Each structure stands twice: as C-alpha cells, then as structure tokens.
C-alpha cells in the first residue's frame, strides 16, 4: 500500500511539474521552445496523462481498495496481485509519458497514451481491479454503503470507457467526426464515472466517520448514485455544440446534463453536514474543499454547455480551468483526506508534523483558487477577444497574460503543498516518529 502512496505522490509531483512548464509556456511562448520534447502541445498532453494515469489512477485505486476493505470488514486482500499491478502500471505510465514527449500523442484529451503501451496498462489494470473486487466480494455486511457503490462503479467504469476509447481511436480507428463523438463520450465518461466517483466515495466514507453523524437524507443516496450512473454517460457530447457533427448529438448531451441536477442535489443534501459541524479535523477540511469544488464544477458543466455561453467559451482556457477544478479541486483534496486519514491507521503512528498538514491544506486551497481564477478569467478574456473579429491574437495574448501568470503561481503553490506532504511522509517513516496515542486528533470516531 505504501508503494501506491509513494508512486502516486511522485506522479503528482511529476504531473504538477509538467503542468507548471505547460502553464509557463502559455504566457512565455519561448519557454523550452528549442527542445523538441518539451514543445507546447506535447508538454500539455504529457502533463495531463501523468496526472490522470499516474496520480489519479494510483491514488484512486489505493483509496478504493482500502475503503472497500474497511467497509466490507474483510481487510484488504490480494496484496501480491496489487504489487504486480502497481509495478506494471507505473512502468506503463512512465513509458507512455516518455512516448508522448517523444511525439507519440493522440488528438483527444484523456486519450494520449501511445498504442503500444495500452495493452500493458490493460493487463496491469485487470490485476488492480481484481484486488478491489476481491475486497468487495468478501464484504461481511451485505447492505453496502454509498462509499462502496461509488468506489465499485469507478473501478468498473474505467476499463469499459478506456477500452472503448483506445480500441476505436488507436487500433480499429473510426473515421472522421465519429472520433470526436467517441472521444467526447469517453472523456466525460472518465471525468464523471471514474474520477468524480472516487472523490465521492472518499467523501461518503470520511464525512460520517469524522463527524460521527449519520448523513441527512441518506435514504436518497441511492437516487443520487443511480442518477449519476444513468445520466452521466449521455452528457459528454455537449462539448461538441456548434461542431461538425449531427446537431442532435450535442443537443442530447446538453439536455441530459440538466438531468444530472438530481445527482448534485442529492450529493449536496447528503454531504452538507461536512460544513455545518465545526470539527477541528485536518482531514475534514480537505474533504470539504473537495465537496465544494464538486458542486461548483457540476454547476459550471451545466452553465458552460448552454449554446449561448459555449459559443464564446469553447476553445478557450475555460477548459483548462475546469480540468484544474476537477483534478486539483475535486479529486486531489478528497484523496489527500483519505491519505491523511489512512496512514496513521496503516502504520500505527501519527503524522510527524501537524504544522505541515496545515500548510499543505493552505497550499491546496490557495493554489486551487489562483488556478481556477487565473485560467477562468483568462478564458473569458480570450473568448470575448476572439468574438471581436478586429482583435488580433497578440492583443488577446497580452490581455490574458497577467491571469495566466496567476495560474502558473497557482500550480506552483499546489506543487509546494505536495512537497510538504512528501516531507511529512518521509519523517513519518523514520524510526523516530512518535507512536499514535490519540487517533482523535486526526479526527475519528472509533476506528472501523
């Protein structure tokens, strides 16, 4: 388990560093321009792949596996299988990111991994999922908690969406616009049915544990879950509004987007107690940030899919702002919460420094704020600039520059926070670390 934790943190740092280069290139075009491997388009694809396949996959799997084992009351099984999986998965992602930097990248977001790497990742993922499913099958109580449904759904959805996308984009290639439709369908599939459910599982797991209260309206959690599973696969194509595809395709996506409101309402009403109780828990603060970002992102997804808005915001940095909000706002804080909660229970020792956790949290929310505001405002400047045919691209770039600088600082601060966590983790592993005396400082009702 520690292997997953370390490798995912290293990927967060690697992906963050690549994002930093990418972000700097947005306002300083000459940055690393002389190095072919670090040309703009490749760095963007590599940064995204490192974050999605390195950070999200590793940490998300660790979180799901652990939560399923805990909630099922069976403990975690399949340690040998998951060790095998971790090795080959990380080997595959490393080769894939290098391959992207060498020029073997795709055209569509989320699906840049070189074709040669995909089978390796597929095998490693099957081993991953096996360990997760074992923990779910072994569960002693049959009722199943909301956290379990979301975690299992994420583990199931990822291979279906990814295999459909990679097979039809890289091996048996669909022609023309069908590719764009497929990539839009699969891209939102990963965002809404893999990345978001892992964060939701973490929230549904941690909030009742830390506050010690039952979630309000928990009987509706079914409704929230199934509305996500049933509607989310239909909404991806809303991003194609105005594109060269049959008009019904984006229209269907936009309409189904509104049905997702049911899901967001249930999540909001279930998890609102995370905010109403004044708990001095470090973990809970991370989870709060994740929940707030998730609801904000849901609102943004719906607003920016409206045709009138999309005409202006399509093809701008708004996409970058939303991606940052998903990865660094929804997923990362929720998972960091799980990590901070999990490690003392795994090793039986407290985190080395509370101060570093506080600093990490400050970096996480402040960096996120700068990122989202920076990219968001730059995106609006860009959209308005593009809509005025008289404005040249140098004028638009100049108007965006200060905001993009802010975003670059944001990613730097997020990265600094991750360094704090790594330092804390290294000190934790040193023999001098203090044994855990009182788990409640980390925020718990009885350990499960």
């Amino acid at each position, binding site marked *: 388990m520690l292997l997953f934790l370390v490798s995912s943190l290293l990927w967060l740092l690697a992906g963050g560093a690549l994002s930093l280069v990418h972000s700097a290139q947005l306002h300083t*075009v000459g940055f690393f*321009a*002389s190095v072919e491997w670090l040309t703009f388009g*490749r760095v963007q694809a590599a940064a995204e792949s490192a974050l999605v396949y390195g950070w999200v996959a590793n940490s998300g799997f660790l979180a799901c596996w652990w939560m399923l084992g805990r909630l099922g009351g069976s403990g975690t099984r399949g340690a040998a299988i998951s060790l095998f999986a971790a090795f080959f998965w990380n080997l595959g992602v490393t080769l894939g990111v290098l391959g992207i930097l060498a020029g073997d990248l*795709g055209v569509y977001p989320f699906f840049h991994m070189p074709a040669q790497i995909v089978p390796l990742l597929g095998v490693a993922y099957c081993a991953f999922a096996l360990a997760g499913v074992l923990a779910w099958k072994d569960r002693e109580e049959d009722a199943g908690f909301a956290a379990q449904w979301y975690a299992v759904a994420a583990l199931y959805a990822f291979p279906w969406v990814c295999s*459909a996308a990679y097979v039809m984009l890289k091996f048996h290639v669909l022609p023309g616009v069908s590719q764009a439709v497929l990539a839009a369908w699969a891209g939102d599939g990963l965002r809404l049915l893999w990345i978001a459910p892992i964060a939701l599982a973490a929230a549904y797991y941690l909030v009742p544990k830390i506050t010690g209260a039952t979630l309000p309206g928990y009987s509706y959690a079914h409704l929230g879950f199934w509305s996500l599973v049933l509607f989310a696969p239909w909404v991806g194509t809303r991003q194609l509004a105005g*594109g060269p595809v049959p008009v019904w395709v984006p229209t269907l996506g936009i309409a189904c987007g509104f049905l997702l409101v049911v899901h967001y309402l249930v999540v909001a009403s279930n998890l609102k107690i995370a905010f109403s109780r004044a708990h001095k828990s470090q973990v809970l603060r991370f989870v709060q940030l994740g929940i707030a970002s998730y609801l904000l992102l849901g609102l943004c997804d719906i607003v920016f899919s409206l045709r009138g808005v999309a005409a202006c915001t399509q093809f701008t*940095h708004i996409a970058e702002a939303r991606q940052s909000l998903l990865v660094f706002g929804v997923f990362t804080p929720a998972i960091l919460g799980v990590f901070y909660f999990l490690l003392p229970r795994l090793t039986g020792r407290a985190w080395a420094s509370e101060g570093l956790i506080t600093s990490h949290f400050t970096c996480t929310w402040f960096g996120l704020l700068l990122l989202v505001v920076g990219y968001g405002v730059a995106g609006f400047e*860009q959209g308005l600039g*593009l809509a005025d045919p008289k404005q040249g691209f140098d004028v638009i770039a100049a108007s965006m520059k200060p905001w993009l600088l802010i975003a670059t600082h944001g990613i730097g601060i997020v990265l600094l926070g991750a360094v704090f966590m790594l330092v804390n983790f290294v000190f934790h592993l040193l023999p001098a670390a203090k044994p855990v005396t009182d788990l409640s400082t980390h925020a718990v009702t009885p350990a499960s």
Partner: protein
Amino acid sequence: MKNNPVLFIGVFGSLALSWVAVVWGSHVQTDKLGLQYDPLENVANPAPLPGVAARGQLVYQDLGCGACHTQQIRRQTYAYDIARGWGERQSVARDYMLQSRPQFGLTRQGPDLTNYQIRASKDGITAAKLHEKLYTGSKVMPSFAFLYTEEPVSGEKSNRALSLATPRGSQLVASERAESLVAYLLSLKQDYALPEAPAAELAAENK
C-alpha cells in the same frame, strides 16, 4: 443495492446503451455520407490528402499543433468563426469523412487553420515564407527551430535552404518533417460547396 450483479450490470448497461445510441448512432448516420461530385470542376469532394500532406498531418499531430489551432468552422449565426474570415461556410461531417486523423483541435491560442491554404495564397504566404515563420516563431507562437538544421554550404546552397540570415558559409535547411508539415498546412481548405453547408452569403440570401 444488495447484490453485485445489479451494480455491475447497471454501470455496464448504462455505458453500453449510451455508446450504442450516441457513438454508434451518429456513426451510422455520418457513415452513409458519400462524396459530392462537382460536374463543373469534374472532381469529387472532399478530396483525399495528397501523400506529402498526409505525412505532414502526422507531423502536425506529433508536435501537438492541435493544442492551439482548431480545424473546424462553426456556423455564422452561432459564433464568430466566419466573421473572422476563417472560412466561407461551416464545417460539416462530410468534410472529414476520408480522414483517419482529423485534427479538430482543442483551443484557439492561434487562428483556425481549416482554410489555411486559401488565406495563405491571399496573403502571399509561400512555402518559403511559412518555413521562416515556423523557424522564428512569433509573439504568440513558439519557434519550431528544431525542425531545421544549420549546415555548412558545400558548393551550391541547398534548394531547401531558408533565406534567413545565417553566419557566413552556413545555411538553414528544412528537414523532411518541416517540408511535409508545410505541404500539409498549404493543402488545408474546405472551399467546395456541399448541399448541407451552403456558403454563408448564400445562406443569408435564402433567408
């Protein structure tokens, strides 16, 4: 939610159903499109990319050009694309039917390139000038100098040499990749008429 199969079938079924309806449904619809024969010019549109340009499309993809340049025109009543002079009509599915690597693009840090050939010939941008543009970059586009090599001149200058100033006795030579990329960029156009996408002026008249 007591049993595993409900969850498993639920997730799989929902994904499969939406895939069949949206992805496969639209594929069946667009796959039926055929080429449009133009009797005046005696050509069928869209034409496939010529060989060098098809190689250039690979270079375009491997450099990630689509991160900043789109290749799709949205209709005039919807967005600014045609007002910016990027095309005469909106792009439609048929325009891309022969392409196995369409480059729709992600953002617009630079202009749309759907009709770059037409714009370039209007602005007098020849292949040589485009090479120089790629070599030097601009305020908003990074330089792609790594596609060019500085070589000593032995005898005559190479016919691939750029006319940019270089130290005495050396020349900047375009690599094969640069040549294909330029050939690709200078082949981009969607200027033929299609029944489902009349030129913007025509569409306005019909109203």
